[in-house]
């Protein structure tokens, strides 16, 4: 296998793994901040216990997110050095600003939050978790700014064979960023919310600490329903922007080979034949693609074959059609998962509104428990669609993935790193799930005697 393929495998696997934890951190930080705010305002110890219990899960998750993030920063240079040379001027700046602005904030104030319960005032402690929540969001902003440049490069000029930044404000107001940031951050809030509702649903089914988990469920359900609707709205805006700026990705995500016709129907299902560039057994909803693309029930959408010709004129000979099946199906998986999240969320709110939460409806709570998997599925599928759909480009229209790889690394080296990172990540994943289960089983009232007093007779005084 060559270094490009291996580096892509490494980048995809480490990024997908990293992105299981990032949205949970962003979402849980917000929910914990809300819980602690209620504690400080109402003085009810139950809310403090909530912040601490969910905080336990948050910290386990946060640790994995942080350590897997270091590799994200390093592997641009390690595996994609020619990419780094070409765009470092534009791409490095947001990464550096992310570290300076967000990572320092998060890491310092998470330390104060963890260790400061008895050392700082209630208000400073509350401020710490809000700053952590704010920091995670800032971090998302700058990393998405960098990603948006790859999707839709702006604010640069090509000098001496490199992309050099010439307008930072163009980067900050990149249309791609303005749709991608709300979509991604709201999805992260939904991820944290569905994790909390899912775990709470499990405990409510088991009838353990019912009052505690009902309250947690309610807080998170409100965050979940607001954010999942927000995700859909932002996603719609993003799709329209896609039609304008990356029509090939849009066409691939629809498996649209030829012209769509006007009005354009949305394909729910199709048997895609990449070799002969046709589909069979299509199931379509009329008008819907026109609506997705233009917010009206008319207008046609360009197909891949036509775009391929246009791209050849613009960028020279080559194959500009991304892996169609992956793009098509990941888009559908994302939309399906997102739709289920909205339905679950609405029904949960309905139950709360009708005050039916004290007699939880068993089948629905079971759905809600498994529903904690929906956001990670949607997040992963969404990123696969965005990144695979951009191929063969790393920076759209400027640099291909082939050209981005480090010329001086060997496939043996990359194979070694792929294997070792996969192995350590697999272990981390398993350990994290195990610890989550352990913390959840113990419940919020068992935490006081953590750290097994058997080998530490003194710590009860804490």
């Amino acid at each position, binding site marked *: 296998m060559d270094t490009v393929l291996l580096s892509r495998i490494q980048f995809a696997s480490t990024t997908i793994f990293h992105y299981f934890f990032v949205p949970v951190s962003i979402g849980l930080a917000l929910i914990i901040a809300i819980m602690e705010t209620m504690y400080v305002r109402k003085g009810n110890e139950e809310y403090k216990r909530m912040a601490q219990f969910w905080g336990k899960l948050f910290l386990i998750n946060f640790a994995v997110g942080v350590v897997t993030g270091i590799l994200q920063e390093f592997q641009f240079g390690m595996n994609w050095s020619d990419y780094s040379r070409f765009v470092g001027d534009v791409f490095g700046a947001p990464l550096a600003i992310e570290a300076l602005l967000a990572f320092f904030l998060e890491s310092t104030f998470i330390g104060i939050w963890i260790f400061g319960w008895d050392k700082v005032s209630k208000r400073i402690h509350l401020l710490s978790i809000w700053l952590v929540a704010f920091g995670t969001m800032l971090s998302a902003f700058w990393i998405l700014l960098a990603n948006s440049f790859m999707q839709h490069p702006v604010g640069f000029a090509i000098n001496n064979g490199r992309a050099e930044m010439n307008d*930072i404000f163009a980067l900050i107001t990149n249309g791609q960023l303005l749709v991608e940031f709300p979509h991604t951050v709201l999805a992260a809030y939904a991820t944290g919310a569905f994790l909390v509702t899912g775990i709470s649903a499990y405990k409510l089914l088991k009838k353990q600490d019912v009052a505690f988990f009902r309250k947690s469920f309610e807080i998170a359900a409100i965050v979940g329903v607001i954010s999942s609707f927000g995700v859909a709205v932002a996603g719609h805006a993003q799709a329209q922007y896609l039609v304008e700026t990356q029509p090939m990705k849009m066409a691939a995500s629809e498996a649209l080979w030829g012209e769509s016709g006007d009005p354009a129907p949305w394909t729910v299902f199709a048997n895609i034949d990449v070799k002969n560039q046709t589909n069979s057994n299509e199931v379509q909803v009329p008008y819907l693609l026109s609506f997705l693309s233009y917010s009206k029930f008319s207008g046609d959408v360009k197909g891949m074959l036509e775009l391929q010709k246009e791209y050849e004129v613009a960028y020279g000979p080559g194959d500009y059609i991304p892996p169609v099946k992956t793009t098509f199906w990941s888009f559908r998986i994302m939309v399906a998962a997102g739709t289920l999240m909205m339905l679950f969320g609405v029904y949960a709110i309905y139950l709360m509104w009708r005050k039916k939460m004290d007699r939880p409806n068993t089948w629905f709570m079971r759905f809600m428990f498994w529903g904690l998997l929906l956001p990670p599925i949607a997040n992963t599928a969404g990123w696969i669609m965005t990144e695979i759909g951009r191929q063969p480009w790393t920076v759209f229209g400027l640099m291909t993935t082939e050209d981005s790889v480090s010329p001086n690394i060997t496939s043996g080296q990359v194979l070694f790193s792929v294997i070792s990172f996969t192995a350590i990540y697999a272990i981390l994943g398993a350990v994290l799930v195990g610890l989550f289960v352990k913390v959840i089983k113990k419940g919020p009232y068992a935490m006081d005697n953590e750290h097994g007093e058997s080998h*530490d007779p003194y*710590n009860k005084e804490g």
Partner: protein
Amino acid sequence: MSLNELWFLLIAVLFVGFFFLEGFDFGVGMETQILAKNDTERRILINSIGPFWDANEVWLITGAGAMFAAFPHWYATLFSGFYIPFVFALLALIARGVAFEFRGKRDSKAWQKTWDVCIFFGSFLPPFLLAVVFASFIKGLPIDKDMQMYAGFFDIVNAYTVVAGITVVLLCLVHGLMFTTLRTLGDLQERARKLAQKLLIPLAALLVAFVVMTYTMTDIFDKRGTLLWIVVVLAVAAYLLAGYFMTKKKDGYAFGMTGAVMALSVASIFIGLFPRVMISSLDQAFNLTITNAASGQYSLKVMTIVALTLLPFVLGYQIWSYFIFHKRVHEKEHLEY
């Protein structure tokens, strides 16, 4: 000062800051196997760096990010050229970071032992590997005319770089021991100070060996002789003062001095490099410099404004967090980890 010079200086400051700060928490991580006698002591040590180590590590992340932004070629040549060392450093940092959070979460000896091993190797390998990388910077590396580095095993691992690696590891340990004297009490504090004193002689031998090897094997004393000799004299003074303060049990001053030795050692690498950022052993003309490896002026200007605006705040709240947790950690209080 040009923006290129300013960014070279800022990156140097970030790495000096990283080694000064994370240096002591690497040291404390090593102490969990060397100094701690039982699990309680191990936990006291871990808790003593608990609120800080993560933010300390961000100095490294910011340093690498600043390299990427200000000198993309430096970043690209460095990270792709040292591919395997960085794989090991990352594996070590990953294992270490989660180990702090994970080790106390299950009540099993085997479980804790496993994570303790991760903490030890995770605290020992990164400073060793980073020192190897930094030392090979000034020794020169096979970098071709396209700025691509094709290094063999012995280009990276040789007597000079290994001496540098061991020196920095030992320096981290001594620095960490002094941090322990500041944040613990009683027997543990006493032993930390004693061990630090005991290590001063071997560390001095290593530092002298490093300076002699640097003088004979690299060109940096030819290029920046005066400045480097000043650094060496300052380092010797700081070193002697560190030993003096240790015997007088003035732990705070001693900690400052071990940190100063660390800071001066790292700074000397950057002083010797300047204005080069990576030295080619093939041909002087292939050197990467603060000019040919840099971003455009616009980018540097934007970064400068951002950095100079944010740095006071970042430094402010980091210092504040050290102030919040200035009290000593002992077994009678709640230990988080």
